[in-house]
């Protein structure tokens, strides 16, 4: 299946692209998309614990199954956590 991956902020800069197309095995989850990125951009692994994800513009989990044509977004940590 084909998925579109959207990247933001530092992830976008590290990949040098805001959008990447990927072909994944049927039955893949979000994690498979992430792992394929880490394979291409090893420095992405720094974000493996902190990254959030969304599928088709809704928050999702790494275990969320993907379907052909899905848009997967990977979101670095947001600006929260500062002194209120």
């Amino acid at each position, binding site marked *: 299946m084909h998925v579109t991956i*959207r990247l*933001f*902020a*530092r992830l*976008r*800069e590290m990949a040098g692209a805001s959008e990447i197309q990927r072909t994944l095995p049927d039955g893949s989850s979000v994690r498979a998309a992430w792992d394929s990125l880490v394979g291409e951009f090893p420095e992405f692994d720094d974000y493996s*614990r*902190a*990254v*959030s994800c*969304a599928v088709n*513009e*809704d*928050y999702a989990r790494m275990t969320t199954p993907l379907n052909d044509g899905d848009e997967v*977004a990977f*979101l*670095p*940590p*947001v*600006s*929260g*956590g*500062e002194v*209120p």
Partner: protein
Amino acid sequence: MSDPRFRVTSDPLDVGAVSAIVSSADCGAVATFVGLVRNENGGRRVLWLDYEAYEPLAVKSFVRIDEEAGERWPSIALAIYHRVGRLDVGEASVVVAAASPHRAAAFGACRYAIERIKQIAPIWKHEHFEGGEIWIEGATADPMDEDARRMAFAQCT
């Protein structure tokens, strides 16, 4: 047509216009919060910020925050506008307006909304300071994290 109360925009923000969206005859109070670009961060002299958003998910997160706030303060009407793009020092990056018949709910919901925006809205700032640049990264964005939600509520009591 999308809900005019929740927007991500590259246009300058107008706090009066955002409050007017939620004000009504039965509201005796509107609490507003305006987030501004500060000239200093962590000892760095800030020159400007570049805000980037995943817009459709950001707007959905504002809707979610409105629903969460409505569970705690049923009387409130909330509006959230967040700016993206390059913002100079002193410019408004975010406006929250919370209207209610009485002030306690308005203050509470306004504070809750800005805390939750910082936790779960997919919006990032790229700080350009004297001598360099840095992406500001805080918490992992997870709307289902109940601890984070409790911390946001704790700021409002």
